[in-house]
C-alpha cells in the first residue's frame, strides 16, 4: 500500500471529508497561511473557498462557542489549534457548554465538532507551549478524546471524528507529523473507542499514548534483540475508554508499564494503572509502573528539556526493572530525535 506521512494523512482526511459533506468546515488561527498547520490544511482554502476554510481573530473562547453553535445548527466544524495550550482559553466552553449541551437538551441536539490540537516537544518551547491536556478533557463526560499515533490512524480516526455526532478533541503530536506509513487512499474510518496493538509481545505490556508509542516501539525493538518480547498497546481513544485490549494484554503478560505523554499526577497514566491493578488483580506479577513528564513546568534549555521528557531508554530501564534483567548496554543503539526539525511555529 502507498506510504504517506502523518501530516499528509491528516490533510487527506480533511480534503476527503470536506468533499463528501459540505457541512464540514475548517477554521482556526493560521489555517490558511503559507505554513498551513504543519502542512495539514494544505489546499483546503483553494479547493473549498474561504467560507469553508478560514482564519479567525485571536479569540479561542468565542471561537469554540462558535463551533458549538454551528454544530448545533447542523454543520460539522473542525477547529484547529497550533498548540493545545491555547485550548485552556476555551475551557469554559469545553467544560461548561460543549460537553453537556446534548445532555441538557434531553438528547435533542447533536454536537458534531472536532477540535484538533497539536502537542509535543518542539525546540525550547518552554512552559506555555508544551502541555498535553488529554487527561483533563478525558475527565469530562460528554467529550471524546482521541490521540492518533500512526499515519493510518491519523487519517482514519480523523475521518471517524468528523463523522461522529459528538465533540471530539483530537490531539496530534508534532513529531508524529514526519512519520510515514501505509495509509489507504480511500476514506476509510478507523473506529473510535478501540485500542490498537502496535507490537505483539508476551513478556510485558506497555500502554502508551501518542508519541510515546514511538518510544515504546523503539524500546520493544531494542529489547527484542535481548530476548524480551514487549506488547505495545495504543488506546487511541482515551475517552470514552475501551480498555479491553489493555486488560487482555496485561492478563497475558502479567506486567504493565504506562508511558503517557503527559505529567503523571492525576493523569491518564493513573487511570490505566488503576484499571489494570483492579481488573488484572490476580494476574499482575509486579505493580504497574507509570512513566511521564517530570513534575515541573517544561523548562526551555535543552539539558533540562531532555530530562523533562521520557523516552525509549526510560521504558527499557523500566522493563529491565520489572523483569529483573541486567541493564542492557545501549551504547550502540541509536535513539533518534526529531527535535531539530522544529524551530517554530508553535
Amino acid at each position, binding site marked *: 500500500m502507498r506510504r504517506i506521512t502523518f501530516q499528509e494523512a491528516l490533510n487527506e482526511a480533511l480534503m476527503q471529508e470536506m468533499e463528501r459533506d459540505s457541512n464540514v468546515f475548517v477554521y482556526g488561527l493560521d489555517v490558511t497561511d503559507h505554513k498551513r498547520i504543519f502542512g495539514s490544511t494544505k489546499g483546503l482554502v483553494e479547493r473549498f473557498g474561504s467560507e469553508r476554510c478560514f482564519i479567525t481573530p485571536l*479569540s479561542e473562547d468565542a471561537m469554540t462557542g*462558535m463551533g458549538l453553535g454551528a454544530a448545533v445548527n447542523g*454543520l460539522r466544524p473542525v477547529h484547529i489549534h497550533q498548540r493545545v495550550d491555547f485550548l485552556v482559553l476555551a475551557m469554559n466552553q469545553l467544560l461548561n457548554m460543549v460537553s453537556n449541551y446534548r445532555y*441538557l*437538551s434531553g438528547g435533542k441536539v447533536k454536537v458534531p465538532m472536532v477540535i484538533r490540537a497539536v502537542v509535543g516537544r518542539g525546540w525550547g518551547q518552554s512552559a506555555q507551549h508544551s502541555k498535553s491536556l488529554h487527561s483533563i478533557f478525558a475527565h469530562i463526560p460528554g467529550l471524546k478524546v482521541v490521540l492518533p499515533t500512526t499515519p493510518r490512524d491519523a487519517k482514519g480516526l480523523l475521518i471517524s471524528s468528523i463523522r461522529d455526532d459528538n465533540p471530539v478533541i483530537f490531539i496530534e503530536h508534532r513529531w508524529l507529523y514526519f512519520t510515514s506509513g501505509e495509509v489507504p487512499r480511500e476514506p476509510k474510518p478507523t473506529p473510535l473507542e478501540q485500542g490498537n496493538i502496535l507490537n505483539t509481545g508476551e513478556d510485558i505490556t506497555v500502554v502508551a499514548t501518542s508519541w510515546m508509542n514511538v518510544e515504546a516501539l523503539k524500546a520493544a525493538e531494542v529489547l527484542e534483540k535481548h530476548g524480551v518480547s514487549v506488547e505495545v498497546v495504543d488506546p487511541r481513544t482515551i475517552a470514552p475508554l475501551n480498555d479491553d485490549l489493555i486488560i487482555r494484554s496485561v492478563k497475558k503478560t502479567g506486567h504493565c508499564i504506562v508511558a503517557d505523554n503527559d505529567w503523571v499526577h492525576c493523569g491518564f497514566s493513573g487511570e490505566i494503572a488503576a484499571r489494570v491493578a483492579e481488573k488484572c488483580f490476580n494476574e499482575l506479577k509486579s505493580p504497574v509502573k507509570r512513566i511521564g513528564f517530570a513534575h515541573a513546568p517544561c523548562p526551555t534549555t535543552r539539558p533540562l528539556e531532555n530530562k523533562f521528557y521520557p523516552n525509549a531508554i526510560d521504558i527499557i530501564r523500566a522493563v529491565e526493572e520489572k523483569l529483573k534483567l541486567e541493564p542492557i548496554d545501549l551504547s550502540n543503539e541509536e535513539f533518534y530525535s526529531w527535535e531539530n526539525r522544529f524551530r517554530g511555529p508553535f
Partner: protein
Amino acid sequence: MKNSFFGVTKMDRTRLNIELYKKEYLIRKSEETIRKYYMDDEMKTPVHLSVGEEAIVSGVIQAMGKRDQVFGTYRNHGIYLAKTGETDKFFAELYGKKDGMGKGKAGSMHMFLPEENFMGSSAIVATVIPVAVGAAFANKYKKNKNLVFVFFGDGALEEGVFWESLNFACLKKLPIVFICEDNGLAIHAHIKDRQAFKSITDIVSKFGCNVFKSESTDAEVIYNLTVEAVKKQRRVNKPSFLHLKYYRYLEHVGVNQDFQYGYRSEEEFKKWFKVDPLKIQRRKLLKLGLIEKEIKELEKAIDEQVEKSVEFAKKSPFPGEEELLSDVYA
C-alpha cells in the same frame, strides 16, 4: 379605514397588541404560579424569574420570524414562554419530570426547545453568546436567511467572551441580534461598581453594529424597535445590538422580593411598577377598543392553560434511572 401607526392598520395594531399582551400575561402568570407553588419544594431547581422584563421578551420575540432562532441565559422563562407558548413541558421540567423539555435533566436554568427554535440557554454568564454567534454563522453558511436572537444581562458585558463574540459577529457580518437586558444588577452588584464605561451602545457601534436602545416597558415600543432593527439589519447587512433597560422585581434567584437587604430600594421598584409592562399593555388594549370582558377571557384561557400544565407536570413521572447515563453521547 386606516388608522396608521408605523403604517399599520388599527386592526393590525390591535391584533399585535393582543399578541403582546398574551405573551406578557403568559409569562407573568407562569412566574406567579411558580411563586405560588415553589414553597411546596417540589420544583427543586433554582429559578431566576422574568417578572419585570415581560415587555422586552414579548416585544423582541413577537418581532422574530417563525424560523428565527433564540438563545438565552438562566433567566430564560420569559423567552421560553414567549417563543413557544407552551407550558406543559415547561412546568414538567420545573418539576423535574420526564415530560419536561429536557426530561428533567435541564431544570430551570437550561431550558430550550430546538423544535421551536429556542436553541439553548446557559447558567454561566455570557457563555451562550458565542454559541449564538455560531448558530448565526451556520445560518449564513447555509444561506437560509434565518436570524439569531441572543439575550443576555448587563453582567455579560464584563466577560471577555462577549467582546470576542461581538468582534467576530461584526467582522463576519453575521445575521445576529444581540439583546442586552440591562437591569443594572448582577445578583446584588450595581452596574456602576462593575463597568467603567457609560454607554455600551456607543462602544458597540464602533464595532460596526447597528445599535438601538430603549427604557420602555411598553412591549409595542420594543416590538417596533426590533422590527426597525431587523429591517435595517437586512438592509445594511450588519448585526444589531439592542440595549434595553428594565427593573428586576424579585430577588436574583428565588421567588421573593428582597428589598429588606438594603442593596436596592423599594422606592425604585415603585417607580418602575407604575409603568409595569402588563399594566401598560392592558390599558392599551382597553384604549384600542377591547372591552374588559374580552381581556378577562383571554387571561382566563391562559390561567387555565397554566393550571392544567401544573397538574400535568405534577402527574408526570420522574425520568427512569437509565436517563442518568443516556444522552451523554449521541
